[in-house]
């Protein structure tokens, strides 16, 4: 008998929170391609359903439901209802690009709440479920901004660095129970969130040029890394930060975007 392919997720369920668009959508599709049944959650039910429909149309298995990442009780019920759950990928995040001296308290609260408290909710809900079950893999979305920053990215960068330390601490706390927690750190990725940047030609090409590969990333490229971190192929990886950034953080340099 051929050895089992450790990247496959057949017979397992992966919950993707934020599956309605961008990187979450890419992660949902990548997990489905590896054979997982994907539970597509998003605060936007129509978008989540569209992702699930595309997966099903491509021959995969998926379902969709509305979920606010900040609603722990709803998340608990939603995840407890899933059978054979082996992984949770959470992607929702928000960025208010503004220099520090101009940041308003309500903007700070909005970014920190969704990015950091959202990640905390996922760690608490999925962490409790998986430590009770004796296994599971949690993937949080950090960013190259956890390591490098630029004018206007201060609060976003702080939350993405915060997510790294939450993931690492969770890895330390849950490791004994067989639960893995890793962070994905994408570089610049072609998503609805970054469309306005891509429409600014100078900005678009400056970001592409800042990467070693000379181009933006695609959601499916981040999605494949998420599927890897969920799968048994990464069974001894925990507390790691996987940069999928086209070499952005491997090289040095600086770009000053338009204010």
């Amino acid at each position, binding site marked *: 008998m051929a050895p089992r392919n450790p990247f496959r997720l057949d017979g397992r369920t992966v919950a993707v929170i934020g599956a309605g668009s961008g990187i979450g959508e890419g992660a949902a599709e990548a997990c489905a391609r590896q054979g997982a049944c994907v539970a597509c959650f998003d605060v936007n039910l129509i978008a989540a359903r569209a992702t699930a429909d595309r997966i099903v149309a491509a021959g995969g298995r998926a379902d969709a439901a509305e979920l606010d990442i900040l609603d722990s009780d709803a998340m608990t019920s939603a995840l407890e209802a899933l059978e054979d759950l082996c992984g949770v990928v959470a992607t929702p995040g928000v960025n208010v690009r503004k220099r520090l001296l101009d940041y308003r308290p309500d903007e700070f609260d909005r970014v920190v709440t969704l990015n950091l408290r959202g990640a905390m909710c996922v760690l608490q809900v999925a962490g409790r479920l998986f430590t009770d079950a004796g296994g599971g893999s949690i993937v949080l979305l950090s960013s190259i901004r956890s390591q490098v920053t630029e004018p206007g990215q201060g609060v976003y960068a702080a939350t993405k660095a915060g997510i790294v330390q939450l993931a690492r601490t969770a*890895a330390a706390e849950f490791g004994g129970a067989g639960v893995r927690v890793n962070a994905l750190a994408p570089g610049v990725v072609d998503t609805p969130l970054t469309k306005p940047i891509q429409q600014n030609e100078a900005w678009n090409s400056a970001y592409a040029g800042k990467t070693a590969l000379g181009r933006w990333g695609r959601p499916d490229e981040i999605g494949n890394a998420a599927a890897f971190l969920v799968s048994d192929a990464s069974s001894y990886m925990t507390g790691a930060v996987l940069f999928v950034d086209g070499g952005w953080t491997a090289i040095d340099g600086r770009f000053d975007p338009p204010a």
Partner: protein
Amino acid sequence: MPACNDLFRLDGRTAVVTGASSGLGIVFAHALAAAGASVVVSARRLDRLEQLAGEIEREGGQALAVACDVASEEDVDALAAKTVNRFGRVDVLVANAGVSDPRPAEHETLDVWQRILAVNLTGVFLCNRRFGALMLEQGSGSIVNVASVLGVVGAGQIPQASYTASKGGVVNMTRELAAQWARRGVRVNAIGPAWFESEMTEEMFASDQALRWIRRKTPMGRPGRGEELAGPVVFLASDASSYVTGQTLLVDGGWTVV
């Protein structure tokens, strides 16, 4: 480079593994073959390599055994020539050959230092340079260097200044080669394993005290199993990691977290 429908597979591609006569190198060779690649297995000890190549062929794969000391320029050139001669191309290099000789730095002789650096750093450079050049000519390729958690943190209790220096060198050389070659189709990444059972760690794994230390210090509570490095290597070798370059993937059960 032959296209693969399943992005995590390597069907039709050629992979070279150095240090393939023992431990983790054997695991990598089997894993790359299982993912569909033809595999060139190399190390200094040819008899063991021929046995491994035979096993891979019996499992339905294609393999070629080539004796090679990675610290020798001539040997690495010959390895590249034999690879191209047999398979016509090279798509993946897993630069795994490495040695260690732990002892306190105040007793670490220049001989030991130079021997470790020659294999672990110079050898990795020579292989990256030679196979990287072939990949640049093709316009595609993926290199996976085997670094170590000891490339990013110190060991202390298993004292080995030369080994940690060599692995730290591999981590940053990986970034540099990634930066140099990214736009010409060649990705360069590394893995950083913590404690895995292999010939290199045989003595350590025979000691209850050392095992207790690993279990206590590792968040996952156990050392790694060799096959758990196969996934990260195949992921980095394959198109599934098409936007990953210059990275060192730590495969350490959380060793560097705490």
